[in-house]
Each structure stands twice: as C-alpha cells, then as structure tokens.
C-alpha cells in the first residue's frame, strides 16, 4: 500500500474532525453548554491535545504499527478481529449518521420532492468510485480540498463578523459549571479524528513524525472548532440553535459581500458537499483496510461494493425505523460509540505497553 506523507496525514485527521464539528457536534456543544460553549470548546480542545500526547507516548514502543497489529500482539487474532469489527462499526455508524443529517439538510433546502434514497445513492456511488481508484487517491484529493473547506469556514466567520451579537457569550459559564466543565466533557466526540490516530502510524511514510502530525492535526481541528462555535454562538441565541438542522449553514445565509454576492449559501454548500464526500471516502477506505487486515487479503476491490451496500443500509436506517430519527438519539449513539472505541484503543495500548515492558525486563 502506498504510504502517505505528513501533510496528507494531518489533512485526513483535520477533515474527519471538521466534518463532525460542522454537521453535528457544534450544535450539540451549543445545546449542552449554551453561552458556555466557547469555554467548553477550549476545554475539550485541551483534553483532546492531552489525550493525543498520551496516545503518542504509548505509541513510542510501537513505531509504525496500527491498533490492529498491537491488539494481535496483545491477544492474538481473536482480539485483533474484535477490535477491528468495533472500529468498523464506529466509522460506519458515524459516517451514516452524518450522511443522513447532510442529506436531510439537502432535502429541505434543495430537493423537497426527491426521495432521500436517490440522494444517498449518489453519495454511495461516488464513494464506491473513489475507493476503486486506489493509490491513496482519496488522501491526495482530501489534501487538495481541505484548504478550500477551511477557507470557507474562515470566510463564514469574517463575513458574519458584522452580524455578531457578542452578548450571546454571556453568562460565560453557560447553563451551569457542571454542564460546561463536567458533562460537557462528553463533547470530546467532536474530535472523532482521534480514533483515526490509532491507524495512522502504519500508513505514514515517516512514522517517527507521528507525534508532530497528531498534535498539529488536533490543534488545527481545535482552531476550526473554535471558529465554527464562535460563528454560530455569536450569530444565534443558544436557544434558537436547538431547533435548527444545520446551524452553520443558517449562519452563512446572512453573509453579504457587496450587492452582487448576496446569497452565498449554495456555494458554501457545494464546498461542504465536496468536503463531506472526502470525509466519507476517508472513513470508507479505513473500514475497507481494517476489513482487509482482518480477513488477511491483499485485494480490497471485491469488498468495496458489499461495504457500500452496508453503508447505504445504515444511512437509511432512520428512514425505516422512525425511532432512530431523533437528533438526541443519534448524538448519543455517536458519543457512545466514540467513547467505547477510544477507551478500547487506549486500553489496548496500555496493556500492550505493559506486556512489552515485561518482556523487555525479563530479557
């Protein structure tokens, strides 16, 4: 498999975090912490950076290995398979939840009479084609697209600056200190890209730069999170955010650059679609790679279309089971899956480190 360089690796993690932030977590943070969202964002950013440092220090003993290799070292093929499947479920469900949310937005904004199935199908076909291209095409394409995606976020912030209501930040600690500092920690799921770090070392051209790549990517993601949360919080009262489907898009609708560019929201949505297809191709490729490693095959092409079918089915689950079509439930599933996978990854690393230390000391 072709290895990726440092900048591409950073852009992969940032793309994962950015898409989660824009489509889901920014809204969750503002719902949970209200005016304390900015402080909560800073807090979770610091925790994310600290956790990243912990992951990197644990990886020092396993340079160039991913979590699957480490779990195989720790508990053999059985543990490797279990861990692999759990991570596949995490990436599959998070992708499908976000895809479902984006498609619902698109349905309301542009395609009110089109069946959601066709829109999902378009995304699935596109991801299938990209996965078929191989050669790490998705990571290079993501590296090209990401600056554009980040630029739109900054432009949205700058463009809306004149509409900002700075009073929305008060009371600064939000609903309560408990909400902002204790339960608000659950918003750490916004850094979903941290879970990708468990698989990054084996993909890198230069695994020795893992620490720098991880920290940089989380720092950039934190800045992006702050930009997005600030834009939404200063634009709308926290109580208004809850009822919206895509608050950042709503914020962009207020941007006006002169008399010609009065409504730039569709251009913004174009960039978001491109950015999201990039997100989907990253997660799908990762799932395929995990599956490839579990079943020990060299060619992933035969499993691309069954996996796409799985993604398609998972995305349409809320359409079939209406109970799942709830923002809070989807958000809780996302959080639950994130913490389970993250904790498992950390535990595997810690135990594997103990095992290695014991082996080294016995020698």
């Amino acid at each position, binding site marked *: 498999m072709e290895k990726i360089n440092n900048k591409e690796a950073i852009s992969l993690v940032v793309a994962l975090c950015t898409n989660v932030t824009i489509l889901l977590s920014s809204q969750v943070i503002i719902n949970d912490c209200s005016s304390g969202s900015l402080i909560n964002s800073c807090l979770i950013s610091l925790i994310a950076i600290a956790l990243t440092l912990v992951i990197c220090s644990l990886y020092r003993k396993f340079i160039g290995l991913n979590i699957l290799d480490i779990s195989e070292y720790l508990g053999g093929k059985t543990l490797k398979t279990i861990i692999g499947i759990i991570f596949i479920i995490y990436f599959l469900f998070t992708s499908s939840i976000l895809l479902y949310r984006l498609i619902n937005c698109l349905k309301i904004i*542009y395609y009110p009479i089109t069946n959601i199935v066709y829109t999902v199908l378009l*995304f699935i076909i596109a991801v299938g084609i*990209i996965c078929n291209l191989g*050669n790490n*095409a998705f990571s290079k394409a993501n590296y090209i697209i990401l600056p554009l995606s980040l630029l739109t976020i900054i432009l949205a912030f700058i463009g809306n600056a004149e509409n900002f209501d700075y009073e929305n930040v008060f009371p600064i600690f939000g609903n309560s200190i408990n909400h902002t500092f204790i339960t608000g920690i659950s918003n750490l799921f916004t850094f979903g890209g941290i879970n990708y770090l468990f698989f990054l070392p084996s993909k890198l051209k230069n695994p020795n730069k893992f620490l720098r790549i991880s920290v940089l990517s989380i720092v950039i993601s934190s800045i992006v999170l702050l930009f997005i949360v600030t834009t939404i919080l200063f634009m709308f009262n926290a109580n208004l955010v809850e009822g919206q489907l895509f608050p950042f898009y709503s914020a962009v609708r207020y941007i006006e650059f002169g008399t010609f560019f009065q409504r730039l929201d*569709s*251009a913004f949505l174009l960039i978001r*679609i491109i950015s999201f297809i990039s997100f989907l191709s990253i997660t799908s490729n990762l799932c395929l790679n995990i599956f490839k490693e579990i079943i020990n095959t060299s060619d992933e092409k035969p499993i691309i279309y069954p996996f796409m079918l799985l993604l398609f089915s998972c995305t349409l689950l809320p359409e079939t089971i209406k109970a799942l079509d709830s923002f809070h439930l989807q958000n809780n599933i996302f959080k639950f899956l994130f913490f389970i996978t993250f904790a498992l990854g950390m535990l595997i690393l810690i135990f594997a480190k103990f095992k290695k230390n014991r082996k080294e000391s016995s020698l």
Partner: protein
Amino acid sequence: MNIKNFFQYTPSTKYTFNIQETQSVSETEKLSKDEVKQSIYKSIDQNLKYVESKYNTLINSDIIIRTFSIVAKNKEFKAFLLYIDGMVDSDLINNYVLKPLMIKNKSNTFDGTITEEENPNKITVKKVQNFNLKDYIYDNLMPQNNVKQKADFSELFTGINSGNCGLIVDTIDIAFDIDVKGFKQRNIDKPSIENVIKGPQEAFVENIRTNTSMLRRFVNNENLIIESISVGKLSKTQCALCYMQNLANDVLIAEAKFRLNNLSIDTLISSGQLEQLIQDDNVTGIPQIISTERPDKCVKAIMQGRAVILINGNPYALIIPSVLIDFLSSSEDSNLKPLFANFLRGLRFLAMLITILLPGTYIAITCFHQELLPTDLLFSIFASRENVPFPIVFELLLMETSFELIREGGLRSPSAIGSTLGIVGALILGDAAVAANIVSPFLIIIVAITGLASFAIPNFSFGFHLRIYRFAFIALGYLCGFLGIGLGLFIYIAILCSLKSFGVSYTAPIAPDTSNLGIKYFIPPFWKQEYRNAYLAPKKEIAQNKISMKWKNSGKD
C-alpha cells in the same frame, strides 16, 4: 415504381465487399517469418533471389538492383547494389560507390598486397599479405564515412529501408550497408501549434536524425544519451530515448526502456500511438505524457532529469514523466519575467476551471440555485429565455455541440477558409440562433467563454479531455445541481490523484506535497530556481548555485 416490378423479384445490385475476419491465428503466423533472421549467403545468385523475393521486385517499381562486376587483385567478382529509388542520393552512389568499385586502376589490378616494414638494420622488407576480399573492399574501395558490415538480411534491410544502399559481393557472406541517404525532407520550420512570442522558433521535423541533432545542439553536453530502440515487428520504426545520464533517474530510464522494448506490435506510425502504448492509464482519457513539437521544451525537460522519446517520421517528441502542471505550462513561461509568466499560469488555471465547470455550473444555478445570482441578473436571464421553447439542458447541449462542430470543421478545412468558417459559424450562426429564439443570448456568452477558455489550455490533448469531461458536468449539474457538481468534482480530483506517469504521481508536486525545493505551479525568478523537482528524483538536485548572479557580489570589494 412500377407495379409489375413490385411483385417481381429483382436481385440486389448493390456492390458489397467484405473481408472475412480471421477466426484463429495459425502457429506459423505467430512465429512470423519476418522475425526469423536469415544470414547472407556466399553465393550471389542465392542472395539475389532472396532479395528479389523479399522486396517483390517484380511488383515494386522503386526497388533498384544494380548488378555489376568488381575487379579486385585482378580478379573479377559479381556484385549487386540494392537501394530504394527516391531515398538515396544518386550522385553519392555514382561517384562514391559505383565509380571506385567499377573503374579499373593500378590498385585493383595488382594481384598481391605489399606492406613495407623497416627493421632495426634499416633494411626494408616487403611482405605479400593474404588476400581478404571483405577487408579489401572495406579498406580500399569504399570512400565512405559510414559503412557497416551486416551479417544478416534483416539488419541490411533496416538500413535500406531508411535510405542506405546495400552492397553484396559474390563469395563473401557479409553485406555492406552504405549511408547514401538523400531523400527530400521538410526543412526545420516554425512551430505550428506551440507558438511563442519570445523564444526559439524551431520545431521538430519528421527526420529523427535532424531532431536528435537539434537536441544535441541545444544541450551541448557529452552526457546527453540518445539510445536507439526500434519498435514494430514490420515497420521497425526507429525511436530514440534521450536523457542526461548524470541527471535522469536510472529507474525511470530502465522503466522507459522496458516499456519500449516490450511492445508487441506490427507497426508504429505516430507519437500518439506510442503514447497510448506506454502510458500507465488509458481508461480515463487524461493525457499522462506530453507531446511537443518544440526542441527547447524537450531540452528543458531533459535538463530537469526527464527523458524524451523521438519517433522517426513524426515531428512530435514525448516527454516522460509528465505531471498535471506541465500540461498547463507553456514554453513561453520560461522566456517571460516571472510576474507575467505567473499571471499567465493563473489565467490558464482559471481557463481549466471554466472549460470544465462553467456550463455545468450555469445549468446548476439556473435550475437549482437561483438565489446565488442577484435578482436583476436572474430576471434578465429568465427574460432572455422567455421565448426559447427548449429546456435549458437541450439548449446548452445544442450550442456546445454546434461549437464543437465549428471547431472541427475549421480544423479540417483548408487553412484559407478555416478561419473564415470559424467566424461565420460563431457570428452568423449564433446571431441567427438567438434571432430565431432557439437559444438565449446569455447562453451564447457562456458557450463562447467556455470555448475561449478551452483555447487557452496550452496542451491540445489536455484541453480535449476537459472538453469531454465538461459534458459529464453538464449532466451532473442538470440532474442534481451543486450536489452533482460537487460529487463530480471530487471524483475528478480523485481520478487525477490516482494517476501516475512513469511512477510519478500525476498531481505532484501539489499532492503529494513532495518538497519545498524545485518549482511548483507558480514559478520563481530564474535566479531562484536552484533545485530540480524532487518528484523526478534526479541524480543531481541542485540546478544552480545559491548565488547565481555572482557579478553582484564581485562589485562589493
């Protein structure tokens, strides 16, 4: 029609001619006779028969076999000359081949060779050497600078087919391949497609030796290697792989040779065919090898550590490897100041985006995202479409197809009326279409801008692929607006990123971001171009000293 004939059977008078398709290839054909090497016979009669049968001299009028006798050492030997009329210089054959061989003089009537040796006692000893006809002819009767001895017919025929003449003499089992080329060829002319305002005004011609000499002259360095490789079992087209041995990556050169030497084809006629045969991917239609008529562009590529392939009979050279930004670069860029060159490069990138996206985006905006346009502009667009009876996609496809027809018509017509056809097509047809309410004037503007932008792409093949992909974006824009455009655009970028040209990523040096050294899309001033591009992995990365303008420092003292 006659009623009587209607009920009467009349056999078809239409002339049809079909060639029966071969169902299977026989084993004997698989091992073609052309591939079997036949040594030169000692008997001249056998050689003559073989040559006559191979060249079908009874049918071919331009194959000349001139039989005559050679006198050597006072002995007469039968011989014949074989050449193709029109490809050789008659004067050269008469004066420097036939004359020395046929005219009897003292040297060829003497029956023994005498050499003189001076021993230490200052006594001259005369020795009579053994007579060897082959050496004798080569040493004494061939006043030619380029004569090769060939042991088998296939090698001899390759020379004859390229304009040499063959001499076969009785009793010896080798033939002489004598360089007497004298065919008419096009003179070195101005480039017809890749024009520049400042810079060399020379283009390649059909003759490979003229082209290699142009490269030699430009490069002016002994490290330039020009390796000859013949491609095609029947045509044996001479190709030349040119590179700097101290710059080009060995793996790249080995790969190029491997691909060229492993082409199992009968005939190679053009550089376009060779491009298809050696490029990595032929499915997407995106060109991965630059084809150029400019020697200066080739020299620039060679000096960067790339390789150039020249094909005999074709005025285009192939540059390998080539990446995306090379297709948007022009030879003009290196002749201009960096500010102007970068402005043009930016313009070309914009042209690329317009060519591929503008019609699709227009259709997406008018069908799905009208809010993006200011209200006044939106009203004027819809007002201009008020009397147009067709759906917007049909209107757009009609105009795009018409534009392509005008372009193709202008290209295929004689040059005198080609430009007129373009003007007539664009002005009169467009005006008439608007007047007849077939298309809206706004759409004419969109199609015209797209057409102009496509002309700004310096590489013809690259521009062509953009024109084709544009139709896919029109379909996507019409079907699902920006959603389709967005998905299509990401897939297109991913396709570009997945391509490789001779092992180099097509989107290098942007993705993967190889190194800060070397030139990226925008070029620095010439004095700052200190490194060769890292993605080519050249043997020498440093192209010039850190301080190239030493004269500036010399004045400081």
